[in-house]
C-alpha cells in the first residue's frame, strides 16, 4: 500500500482487506486542522467533526478477487457508493468494463458546485452544521477565481494472471538468492567472500539504487532494492534520464512486493522546472492462485520523448500477465497548460498518434476500449489479453 502527500492533494492506495474509506473522515479533519484548508461543514475548527472541503474526490478500484472477504464499506460497490454519497454532495458512480469479466469502478465528485459556492460566513470559515449534512466539494469561494485545469494525468495498469516465472522474483527466497548472487559477484571482485544482503560501504550503485548499511535499512528494504533492479522496475524511470529519481521498495516475507518512486520534474524545453511532483507505485501479489500486479504513475506521457504505450510495454514485460487493464485519466486542459508546451496542432497530432500506439501492445490483443468524457477529465479504459 502507498500514500502520496502533495501540498494540494493526497493519494492513498491500499490493498488486501484494508478499510480505506474509514480513514476519509480523519483525512479531511487533518487537512482542516493541521494544514489549514477551508471547511464548510461545521461552525468552527474546534468542532470534532470539522472536515476540509475537498475540491475533487476520486475513488476507484478493480473488481475484487475475493469480495466476500472484504470488511466494512468495502464488501460491495453499492456499499462503497452509499458510504461516499452519505459523505459528499455531487458524487457520481460508474462501472467500466465487462460485468462478467474484469471491470473497474469509479466514484468521482463533480466540481460544478464551484459555480454556486455557499455564502461565506462572516464570523468563521465554517457554516452552521444545520445548513449542510454532507461535505460539499468543488467550492472555489475561499480560493477566489476558477478551478484551473492543470497538466494532470494518471496512468494505472492492473495486471492479473502473472507469468509464474516472472512472479518468482517477488518471493523472499528468490530475492535473497538474487541478492547473494549479486553480492557474491561484488565480493569476488573485492576479494571478499561474505554473503550479507547489507552493504558495508553504504555506496549507491551507478543507477542510484543504494544497498545501504544495515543500520539504515531493513532486510525487506534491501531486498526490495535488489528486486527493483532484477525485475527491471528501476529501468522504467532510470536515473540516467531522471537523475534525482528515487525508489523505495520493500520485499515482503514470504512473498509480495511494494515500491514507491518519486520522480522530480525535469526542465522543460524553455529551461524552466515545473513545480509538480511525479510519482509511480508498484504492488505485487505473486501467488499463483491470486496473482496480481499494479503500476500507477502521474509522470506525463511524452516526457523525455517516451510514449505512454512504451511505458505500458515495459511494465507489462516485467510481469507478463495473462490479462491487464489500463486506465488513463487526463485533464482536458492538460495539453493547453503543460509547462513549456504550446497547445499547437503538432502537439495535438502527436497526442493522437500516441493514443493510437496504445492500441498495439506487443504480445497482447486489445479487447475493450471504453471512453468516458467527464466535465474536465477524459478517461480511457482499455482491456488487453495475451495473444
Amino acid at each position: 500500500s502507498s500514500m502520496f502527500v502533495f501540498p494540494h492533494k493526497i493519494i492513498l492506495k491500499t490493498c488486501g482487506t484494508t478499510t480505506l474509506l474509514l480513514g476519509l473522515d480523519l483525512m479531511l479533519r487533518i487537512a482542516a486542522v493541521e494544514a489549514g484548508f477551508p471547511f464548510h461543514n461545521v461552525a468552527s475548527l474546534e468542532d470534532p467533526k470539522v472536515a476540509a472541503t475537498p475540491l475533487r474526490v476520486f475513488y476507484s478500484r478493480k473488481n475484487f478477487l475475493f469480495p466476500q472477504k472484504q470488511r466494512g464499506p468495502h464488501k460491495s460497490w453499492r456499499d462503497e457508493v452509499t458510504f461516499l454519497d452519505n459523505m459528499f454532495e455531487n458524487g457520481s458512480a460508474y462501472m467500466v468494463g465487462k460485468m462478467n469479466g474484469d471491470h473497474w469502478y469509479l466514484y468521482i465528485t463533480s466540481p460544478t458546485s464551484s459555480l454556486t459556492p455557499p455564502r461565506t460566513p462572516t464570523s468563521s470559515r465554517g457554516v452552521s452544521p444545520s445548513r449542510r449534512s454532507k461535505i460539499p466539494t468543488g467550492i472555489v469561494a475561499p480560493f477566489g477565481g476558477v478551478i484551473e485545469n492543470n497538466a494532470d494525468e494518471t496512468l494505472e495498469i492492473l495486471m492479473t494472471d502473472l507469468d509464474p516465472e516472472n512472479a518468482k522474483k517477488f518471493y523472499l527466497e528468490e530475492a535473497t538468492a538474487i541478492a547473494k548472487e549479486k553480492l557474491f559477484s561484488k565480493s569476488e571482485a573485492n576479494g571478499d567472500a561474505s554473503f550479507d544482503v547489507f552493504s558495508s560501504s553504504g555506496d549507491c550503485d551507478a543507477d542510484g539504487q543504494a544497498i545501504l548499511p544495515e543500520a539504515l535499512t531493513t532486510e525487506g528494504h534491501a531486498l526490495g532494492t535488489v528486486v527493483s533492479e532484477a525485475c527491471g522496475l528501476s529501468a522504467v524511470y532510470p536515473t540516467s534520464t531522471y537523475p534525482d529519481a528515487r525508489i523505495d521498495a520493500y520485499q515482503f516475507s514470504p512473498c509480495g512486493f511494494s515500491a514507491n518512486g518519486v520522480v522530480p520534474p525535469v526542465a522543460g524545453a524553455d529551461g524552466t522546472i515545473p513545480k509538480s511532483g511525479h510519482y509511480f507505485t508498484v504492488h505485487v501479489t505473486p501467488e499463483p492462485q491470486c496473482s496480481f500486479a499494479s503500476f500507477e504513475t502521474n509522470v506525463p506521457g511524452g516526457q523525455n520523448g517516451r510514449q505512454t504505450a512504451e511505458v505500458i510495454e515495459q511494465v507489462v514485460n516485467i510481469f507478463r500477465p495473462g490479462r491487464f487493464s489500463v486506465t488513463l485519466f487526463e485533464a482536458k486542459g492538460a495539453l493547453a497548460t503543460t509547462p513549456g508546451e504550446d497547445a499547437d496542432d503538432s502537439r495535438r497530432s502527436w497526442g493522437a498518434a500516441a493514443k493510437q500506439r496504445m492500441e498495439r501492445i506487443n504480445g497482447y490483443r486489445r479487447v475493450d476500449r471504453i471512453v468516458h468524457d467527464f466535465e474536465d477529465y477524459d478517461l480511457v479504459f482499455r482491456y488487453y489479453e495475451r495473444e
Partner: protein
Amino acid sequence: TFSPSEGTPYLTINHDVAADLDSTNAFEGPEKLLEVWFAPSAKALPAGVKEGGLKAVNPDSWTPMLDLVHCKVLSIINSENVDSYLLSE
C-alpha cells in the same frame, strides 16, 4: 559511485514496523485508490493554508488515520514536491 545532487529525495525507514512483517495471509491484490484534491494545484493553495499545504502536516499525524485503514508506515521518501509513504498490508 553515484553521487546524488542536493535535490535528491531522502528516505526514512520505520524500523519498528518494517523489521518483522509477515504477508503469509495476503490474498487480495487489487487495491482501493482514493485521491482527494483540496486545491487546483500546489501553486494555488487557498489563503490561510500553511506553507507547504498537506506536506506541512507532521508525518505522525497521519498514523491514526492509517490505523483506521489498517496500514502502517514502513518508510517515507521526502522530496520537494511530494512525500511518498510506503505502507504495510
